[in-house]
C-alpha cells in the first residue's frame, strides 16, 4: 500500500500539485486521470522520489519514503517497476537486453535464466521477434510494451505506469490493460496508472483519482464515476461519445 499525505510540489514558484492526499491499495489498480498538463506525471514522479516534493509525506508500506536511509531507499527502488511516459528504453541495449538490465544488477541468475525470464516478459506483452532490435528500430507502441516488460521483469511489489496505452491500437491497449490487471492481482502488487483513456478506467479501474490543475477533485470507484457531481470530471468523462451513449442507455 502506498499512502500520499498533503503533497505539494511547485516548479520555479508555479504550483503544480496542491495538497494531494490519497491511498493506493495493494492488489488493486489505482488510476490517476486528468486532462493533459493537470499534473499526473508530476504526482507519479513525486511519489517515487524522482521529484522532491515541497512538503508532504509518501509512505510505502510503513516506510516514510522521504526520510528513508540510503539502503532502504535502494531496496525500495529495486521493488519498484516503472514505465515512463516516453518509455525511456536504454538506447545502448536491444529490447531483450533492456528487459534483462535490472536482472543483471539485482539477481544472480545465469545468462540463460535471464534470457528465459526476459523472453517470458516480452511474450506477456505480445512482443515476439523484436529481441535483437534496438529501441530506435521499434515503433512507439512496441517501445511502450518493452518498457512494460522491463518494469515487470523483477516481479515488482509496486508498479507505476505513466500512460501505458497511449499510442497503442485499441486491441493491444485492452490487452495491456488486462495484463497489468492480471499481474497486479496475481502477485498482489500496488499498481498506479496514469491515463486519460476512459476505456481503461472502465476496464480495470479499481480506484480512480481525478486530478484537475494540480488539485484532487474526486476519488472513488468506476461505478460512481458517472454520478460524481463534479463538473470538471463530468466534462472529462463525457467528452467521448461512447461514454455519453453508455450513460444514456443506463439511464433508460
Amino acid at each position, binding site marked *: 500500500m502506498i499512502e500520499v499525505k498533503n503533497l505539494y510540489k511547485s516548479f520555479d514558484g508555479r504550483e503544480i500539485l496542491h495538497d494531494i492526499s490519497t491511498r493506493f491499495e495493494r492488489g488493486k489498480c489505482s488510476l490517476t486521470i486528468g486532462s493533459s498538463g493537470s499534473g499526473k506525471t508530476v504526482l507519479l514522479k513525486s511519489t517515487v522520489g524522482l521529484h522532491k516534493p515541497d512538503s508532504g509525506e509518501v509512505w510505502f508500506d510503513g516506510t516514510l519514503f522521504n526520510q528513508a536511509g540510503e539502503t532502504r531507499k535502494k531496496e525500495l*527502488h529495486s521493488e519498484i517497476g516503472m514505465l515512463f511516459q516516453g518509455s525511456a528504453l536504454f538506447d545502448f541495449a536491444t529490447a531483450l537486453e533492456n528487459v534483462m538490465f535490472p536482472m543483471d544488477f539485482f539477481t544472480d541468475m545465469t545468462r540463460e535464466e535471464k534470457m528465459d525470464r526476459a523472453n517470458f516478459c516480452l511474450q506477456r506483452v505480445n512482443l515476439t521477434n523484436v529481441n535483437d532490435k534496438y529501441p530506435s528500430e521499434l515503433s512507439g507502441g512496441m517501445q511502450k510494451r518493452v518498457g512494460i516488460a522491463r518494469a515487470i521483469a523483477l516481479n515488482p511489489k509496486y508498479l507505476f505506469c505513466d500512460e501505458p496505452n497511449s499510442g497503442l491500437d485499441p486491441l493491444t491497449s485492452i490487452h495491456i490493460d488486462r495484463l497489468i490487471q492480471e499481474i497486479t492481482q496475481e502477485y498482489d502488487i500496488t499498481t498506479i496508472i496514469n491515463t486519460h483513456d476512459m476505456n481503461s478506467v472502465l476496464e480495470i479501474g479499481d480506484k480512480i483519482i481525478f486530478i484537475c490543475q494540480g488539485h484532487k477533485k474526486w476519488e472513488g470507484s468506476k461505478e460512481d464515476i458517472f454520478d460524481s457531481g463534479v463538473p470538471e470530471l463530468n466534462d472529462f468523462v463525457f467528452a467521448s461519445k461512447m461514454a455519453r451513449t453508455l450513460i444514456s442507455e443506463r439511464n433508460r
Partner: protein
Amino acid sequence: MIRQFFIQTGRYILFMEKVFRRPEKWKITARQFIQESDKLIINSIPLIALISIFIGAVLVIQTAGNLQSPFIPKMYVGYMTRESLVLEFSSTMVCLILAGKIGSNISSEIGTMRITEQIDAMEMMGVNSANFLVLPKIISCTLLTPLLMLMSVFLGITGGYLTVLFTDVIRIADYIQGIRYWFVSFFITYSCIKTAVFAFFISSVSAYFGYYAEGGSLGVGRNSTRAIVITSALILIFDLILTKLML
C-alpha cells in the same frame, strides 16, 4: 559568476563522490570498460595518428628552416622535433583535440540519456547511474590516453622521418642521430602523467555536464559546448601547474 563557479564545483565534487562508489557488480563495470575503451580510445586512433604524422612532418620542416646557422649541427632538427612532440604536442595538443572528440561524445550521450529519462529509469531500478555510466569512461580514458600519447610521439617522429626521407631538408643520418640524442626518460613519465590528468578532466567534466543537462536537445548542445570550453581551459591551466611542479 563567482557564485556560479562555487556551486558548479561543489556539485561536480558531489557527482564524483557518486561516481566513485563501489560498483554493484565489477563484472558489469569491466564489460562497460571494454565497450567504452573501444568507443572512446580505439576509435580515436585514426584521428590522432593522422594529426601526429602531419605535425611531425611540419615540425621538421619548420625547425630546419629556423636552424640555418652553420654553427648548429643539423642533428638538432631531429632532437627538437622529438622534444616538442614529447613535451607538449603529444600530451597537451592531443588532449585538446580529444577534449573536442571524446568530450562532446560523452556529454551528448549522457545528456541525451538524461533528457529522455533513461537516467531516471536507472535510478528507479536502484542502479547508481553515475557509477554505471561514468566510472568505466573515466577509467578507460585515464588509463589508455597515455598510450595514445606514446603512439602520437612515435608517429610524429615517423612523420618527420618521412619528410627527411623524401625531401632534402637534412640528411637522414643527422635526423636519426638527433632523435636518439640526450634522451631523458623522465620526460616520458612527465608526459604520461600530464596526459592521464587531462584525460581524467576530459571524461569527468564532460560526463558531469551531460549528467546535469536540462532543457531538451538545446540544453544538451549547450552543455556539450560548455564541457569542451571548460575542459580546454582546465587542460591549459593544469599544463602550467604540472610543468611548474615537475620540471
